[in-house]
């Protein structure tokens, strides 16, 4: 509640509220939907709709490490698909696809625990994950 109170003055606060909760707890527990709805005078359906629309938002606790591999066109052109397979084989659930980190001249690009990696290889990703 204290967290949500910081957004009381914001216009259109629902997405911000969900992002704030995820930042704080790593994910958004579906139980938060009713809480947010009541706090901002929205329907549960509206809040649930926002929660399920955006790729960033998750409703289960995240793995210890977060690996995102860019699989958009520019990175595909320099081998992102084979990198994606290698990384998924090794790190499974920690890995997710992403579409563009704006590092398209130095692909394949990856993000490991918030750190950007260019000319990414499995070895570089393993090193950054430590």
């Amino acid at each position, binding site marked *: 509640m204290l967290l949500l109170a910081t957004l009381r003055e914001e216009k259109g606060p629902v997405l911000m509220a969900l992002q704030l909760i995820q930042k704080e707890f790593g994910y958004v527990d579906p139980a938060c939907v009713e809480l947010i709805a009541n706090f901002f005078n929205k329907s549960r359906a509206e809040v649930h709709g*926002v929660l399920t629309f955006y790729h*960033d938002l998750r409703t289960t606790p995240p793995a210890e490490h977060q690996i995102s591999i*860019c699989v958009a*066109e520019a990175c*595909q052109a*320099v081998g992102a698909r084979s990198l994606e397979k290698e990384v998924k084989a090794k790190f499974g659930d920690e890995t997710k696809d992403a*579409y*563009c980190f704006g*590092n*398209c001249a130095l692909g394949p690009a990856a993000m490991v625990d918030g750190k950007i990696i260019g000319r990414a290889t499995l070895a570089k990703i393993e090193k950054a994950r430590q």
Partner: protein
Amino acid sequence: MIIYVPGDSAAVSVGADEVAAAIALLAPAATIVRNGSRGALWLETLVEIQTPNGRIAYGPVTPEDVASLFAADFLNGGMHPLALGKTDQIKWLANQDRVTFARVGIIDPLSISDYCAHGGLLGLTQALELSSEELISEVTESGLRGRGGAGFPAGIKWRTVAQTASAEKYICCNADEGDSGTFADRMLIEGDPFTLIEGMTIAGIAVGATKGIVYLRSEYPYAIATLQKAIDSARVNNWLGASVLGSAHSFDIQIRVGAGSYVCGEETAMLESIEGKRGVVRAKPPLPAVEGLFGQPTVINNVLTLSTVPMILADGAAAYKARGVGRSLGTQVFQLAGNIARGGIVETAFGIPLKELINTYGDGTLTKRPVRAVQIGGPLGAYFSTEQFETSMDYESLIAAGGMLGHGGIVVFDDTVDLAVQAKFAMEFCAIESCGKCTPCRIGSTRGAETIDLIIKGVRIDENKKLLLDLCEVMTDGSLCAMGGLTPLPVKSAMINFPSDFNGVQK
């Protein structure tokens, strides 16, 4: 002693932080400035030394190279295999015409004094002298068009907002740069954030808006951090706030962070997202200029559009429109990406041939194999073949050639690419990112991917090609926004320009 080591996230992605740390260890007395990138991303990490005769460059420097650079006395211009001479004489950079990117890579992105020493605030100061009408006329006169991709004249959009009466108006900067192959917005925000702030403030003064919002994607954490620091600093210095530069104008800017949705780069989906809702596209009309954010008149411009405005006001509309061709006036910030040997930012006047960007600047592919296909304008842009390399890079010529300029991103593929697979990806991407509001986009994309899959597998090829073209027509004509409406562009251009990839023989 000043040493420049870029803090741009592309440079950081190939070890700039480690290079900076290694240099700091061996030259503890030197000042290390984390500038933006000069844009020659193939030379990152590009380390520059300030000498009495100008800046000299070394690159691409890895953390492992630092010891040998010191051994070669690089701080005093010593010879080394990575030595590039004077930075502004590197041909790749010297041949460009930097307007929007004039300061990027040169200044410390967060230094107020650097910004002002390099022409910062001249545009805003000029704007404060002009009436709203004069200001809008100047922007209209410059020929500046929307750099997000639609190419709509900025001045005309501003005029509509200025003429719509309302107590509350907004300037929304679209920094949801989701197109693969584009990174100019990110580099500008990381390398020269005050320019965007200045451009938004000018727009606010022109149309009578007091609130600015930058919708910045979550995939750009470095840009978010830099822009937030710049906004805080601008407030402290009264560049933003109740009295902009001591004038009667009030203007402030807030960042709203995206949440990983591509379609939120579409302007009306972006408005929904800023309002905290699902990023579902709105039907137009009403135009956002009349009824936009929270129902109020809203200017929506791309980062590059707004960031070019200060230069136009500082140097005059005539100087800007002296560049370019036809109705594509001024400069375009092209982004060379994908399988390219020398990728990065090339800002030059509209009208440069595609071939010059790919061969002269780009030096062909990174893999040294022949170029086979080039996608221009992001995931919704057309695939061009090498036979179209004479195409002039401007809004009208690209449309005439069956494509679009989009946000100016150019993704290069070598001869191992299979265009049927790329066409299928275009449909799959649309299926993942569709907001779901209209049927052609929501359902058509899934059916399109399935149909291309059948073609790839050699099932009833002619029949399925015909079906696919029919589907493309429905999506083009029947979709609410560019997401579904333009997904057929990469698909059809791949079929037309690379027919041999659609004959059921897998590569």
